[in-house]
């Protein structure tokens, strides 16, 4: 017995050693801290056998500091039981970060224990009061929750003029498209679906199965202009956003032509993606076809799900990633001249993503080496997919692509540790530095399953520099601000942005990995208002508060 015990100990030690060696090679380690952090969440898709299309798609998550205590809190969106099939009451969940690695469920206290069929979330301080407000996209009526600043939220949907508008909304984001200092709201809609208009789809002619999006008419995205008085005006039609053929799931903010005006990239399912180029006059023009991002390189409209935009090659130009269906690679685009070029096949991302169905995705510098890596939450929509495609499962491992710095990525999920690569029916994905150790932790939601919080710990001693940017003339969240840092042989840029990924929102502060550098030469911030500010010789290993036109203040830690 003793021998057996020591043997099992030995093998555990060996596996630990192997794990450590692998992690050491990566320079970071993930630890699943969901339970120890006190996050006990179970997504409810409402599935009872009715096979309603929305059941397969939810839900999202967000990192936000709703109480401005400097610690990133967590918001998890939830679905609900369908009318006539009520079994339990499920609501979205707000987890307050206690600052010690644990969270407290404050949903009820915050007034968010509202039963709704939630899909996605967009966090933004639309009234510039300093406290982040929450838009929850829903099947049915979307909800806008205004942050009172006292730890509670008030549903202002109707008062804000967003009521009486039912749809099948998915991702959403806040951005200031007219640069008037007020955050406007963009909402994606998937298809024209309602309980009443549900279509019977079947694989065998007898049993109902989930329909593909082709079965339903598309639905236009919405653009709401912030009047500045707490109300919004629907400018969908007048802004050129209206498109009744779209089946949108993801949206990302970018400045595609680097004219200082925010543009939008919308990932559409089975329809061409849209690149809404800001015309500087309150209107947009779709330039996705001419930019080469509407279709796959074979000219096919793929099943776009999640989307993120970032300067992943440190060229200063935005790069794009769009997750697609299984048997369709992730689209990884780099600006080449005036149009995008899909480099997925040669980058290592394409082949690795062929057999997975990607949803949430984010560019983030996981190992703080100065190159943006790429994380993807995968999971199929069809529980029986393995019967049809043997090498594709319903639950699928998330993927983590480390950026090699030369346009190539290496998938390292299996080495990241603590079950990160265990198959999940992944949907939402967001990042945030919840433990304020300077690196980015990952939050993943699953369909009809739990959420996962992975703490990221650096093993190689890499450090970062973080910026909390606050607009004064610009919108207070400084969404749309460009932050660039310059250091010895290094140049990186980030856009302060909401949205991206799928149904989710990552934290607003921007994080730059600087390897082991003590200082950076300078940081340049281009505010949405048009102002540019530059600060020199900043120590790394901490966070800074940058307030528009007021200077930069270092925090004593991250």
């Amino acid at each position: 017995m003793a021998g057996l015990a020591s043997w099992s100990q030995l093998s555990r030690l060996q596996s630990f050693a192997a794990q450590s060696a692998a992690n050491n090679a990566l320079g970071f380690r993930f630890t699943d801290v969901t339970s120890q952090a006190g996050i006990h969440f179970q997504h409810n898709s409402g599935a009872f056998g009715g096979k309603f299309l929305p059941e397969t798609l939810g839900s999202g998550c967000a990192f936000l500091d709703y109480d401005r205590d400097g610690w990133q809190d967590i918001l998890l969106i939830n679905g609900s039981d369908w009318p006539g099939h009520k079994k339990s009451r499920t609501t979205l969940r707000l987890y307050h970060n206690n600052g010690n690695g644990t969270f407290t469920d404050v949903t009820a206290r915050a007034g968010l224990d509202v039963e709704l069929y939630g899909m996605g979330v967009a966090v933004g301080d639309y009234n510039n009061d300093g406290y982040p407000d929450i838009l929850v996209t829903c099947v049915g009526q979307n909800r806008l929750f205004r942050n009172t600043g006292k730890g509670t939220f008030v549903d202002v949907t109707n008062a804000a003029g967003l009521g009486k508008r039912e749809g099948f909304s998915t991702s959403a984001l806040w951005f200031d498209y007219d640069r008037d200092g007020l955050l406007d709201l963009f909402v994606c809609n998937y298809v024209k679906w309602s309980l009443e208009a549900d279509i019977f789809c079947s694989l065998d002619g007898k049993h109902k199965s989930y329909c593909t999006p082709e079965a339903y008419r598309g639905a236009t995205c919405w653009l709401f202009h912030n009047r500045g008085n707490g109300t919004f005006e629907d400018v969908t039609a007048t802004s050129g956003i209206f498109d009744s053929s779209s089946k949108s799931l993801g949206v990302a903010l970018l400045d595609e032509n680097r004219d200082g005006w925010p543009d939008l990239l919308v990932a559409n399912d089975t329809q061409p993606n849209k690149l809404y180029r800001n015309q500087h006059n309150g209107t947009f023009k779709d330039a996705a076809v001419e930019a080469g991002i509407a279709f796959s390189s074979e000219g096919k409209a793929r099943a776009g799900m999640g989307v993120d935009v970032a300067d992943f090659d440190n060229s200063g130009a935005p790069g794009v990633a769009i997750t697609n269906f299984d048997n369709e690679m992730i689209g990884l685009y780099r600006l080449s001249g005036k149009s995008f070029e899909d480099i997925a096949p040669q980058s290592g991302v394409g082949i690795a993503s062929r057999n997975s169905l990607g949803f949430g995705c984010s560019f983030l510098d996981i190992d703080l080496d100065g190159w943006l890596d790429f994380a993807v939450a995968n999971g199929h929509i069809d529980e029986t997919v393995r019967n049809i495609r043997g090498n594709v499962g319903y639950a699928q491992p998330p993927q983590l692509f480390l950026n090699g710095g030369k346009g190539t990525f290496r998938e390292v999920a299996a080495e990241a540790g603590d079950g990160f690569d265990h198959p999940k029916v992944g949907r939402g994905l967001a990042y945030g530095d919840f433990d304020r150790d300077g690196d980015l932790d990952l939050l993943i939601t699953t369909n009809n399953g739990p959420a996962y919080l992975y703490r990221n710990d650096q093993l190689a001693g890499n450090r970062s520099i973080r910026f909390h940017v606050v607009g004064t003339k610009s919108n207070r969240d400084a969404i749309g601000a460009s932050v660039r840092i310059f250091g010895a042989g290094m140049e990186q840029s980030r856009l302060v942005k909401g949205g991206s990924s799928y149904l989710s929102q990552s934290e607003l502060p921007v994080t730059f990995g600087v390897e082991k550098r003590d200082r950076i030469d300078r940081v340049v911030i281009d505010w949405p208002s048009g102002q540019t500010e530059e600060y020199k010789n900043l120590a790394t290993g901490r966070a800074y508060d940058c307030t528009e036109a007021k200077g930069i203040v270092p925090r004593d830690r991250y």
Partner: protein
Amino acid sequence: MASLLQQHCHTHPALLRPIGPVTRAIPPLYARGVSRPSPSDRSPTIGLVLGLVITFSAVLAYSAYITWQVTGLRKLQTELVDRNRKDSLQLLRIQNDLNLLAVAMRDMVSSDEPYPLTAWSAQFQRIRTDLDDAMRLEAGFAAASRTPEQSAFLTSSVTQFWDAVDRVFALAHDGQEKEARKQIQNSLQERQAALSTAVARFLVQNTENEEQAGQRIVQIYDRVQRQVYFFLAATLLAILLNGLSLIRWNRRLFARLAEISERRSELAQKLISTQESTLRYISRELHDEFGQILTAIGSMLRRAGTHAPEGSSLRADLQEVLETVQSTLDKVRSLSQALHPVMLDEAGLESTLDWYIPTIERQTGITISYEKQGKPFLVDGAAGVHVYRILQEALNNVARHSGAKQVSVRLRFLAQTLELEVRDRGAGFAESPNRRGIGLVAMRERSELMGGQLVVTRPTDGDGGTLVHLTVPREKAESYAKEDHSVTSR
């Protein structure tokens, strides 16, 4: 003495009679059915080159034909099939745009969006841009297969459709939503449907074209296959003909070679028999005629000597002449014996060798160990001559070339064969190509004349030297004379 001999020769009737084979007319070289090669078939090279040229031509022609067919196929593929496919893709794109328009129009008519009809203008504009692009590309691909009327119909229909769209949006812009919707239902949707039908028809036409092209491709493949078989057969035939002509030429060449070899052998045998009969004749003449004359002279001189007074100078002179005559007689007899040992004819091979070997031992100073084995049988005269000559040549070679001081000669009378072995332990002569004199050839020819076998080897027992081994079948050795090969009979 010389003049005396000369005179005798001139007068002796035996010298006047024909001397057998020597005087016989030599037959022409190609007398025995071997025709001289005509200029045309003197060499097979021309035929072979011709065959090669034909084969090459066939291969070249075949390659050219295949290249031509493949080029045609490629042309068909790129110009027709690919073009058709590209056209179909553009038609599908057009169809897709038309469907998008149909869906958009349905949305516009259904009024379930809280937006005015003008909201759709951007969407229509996007579709229009794509449709125009698709139409432009499609027109380029479809030029070959479409009639001008069809193209004109498509273009004008699209133009009319967009004109109608513009009118609808103009109405919507003026706030006449109801009228605009009516226009959509009454005009736009119909036009869209008509366009969609036309495009569908073009797609069907393309599919038919593709099928036809497919059939043509299959036909080309069939034709190529047939031609491949034909060319393959032709090439094989050319190779076969070439091969046959090569075989024919080879056979002719070998036949000629065999004939030449036969002639050569015949000549050699004739040479040998001529030489042998000549030598025999001279030997007989010397022995019989000159011997008798010299004996007679000797008797006369002896008789004359008795008449001369004893102690007279005449008697002494006669005695001197008598001795000279006697010496001449000995030399003549010796020469006669050397030219052709009469013993062979009279006492046989065995006795001749018994006499010859000590003689040659004396002459050359080589020690010869002579051994006889088996029960001797009578060796025919002609065969005996050949065996004797072979031994003579072998020993001559030993004396001349080997430098050996000892030779062993063994004559074996076996049940089936007569064997002669001459073995020296000298330098050997078989190796050097320069030594291939007439001697060895003559030895071989002689052995072949007897139906025997002559093997000259360099023994590997360490002593070196040369071993000449002659084997003659017993019946040949015994009965050679009975056949028409006899040297003497000629």
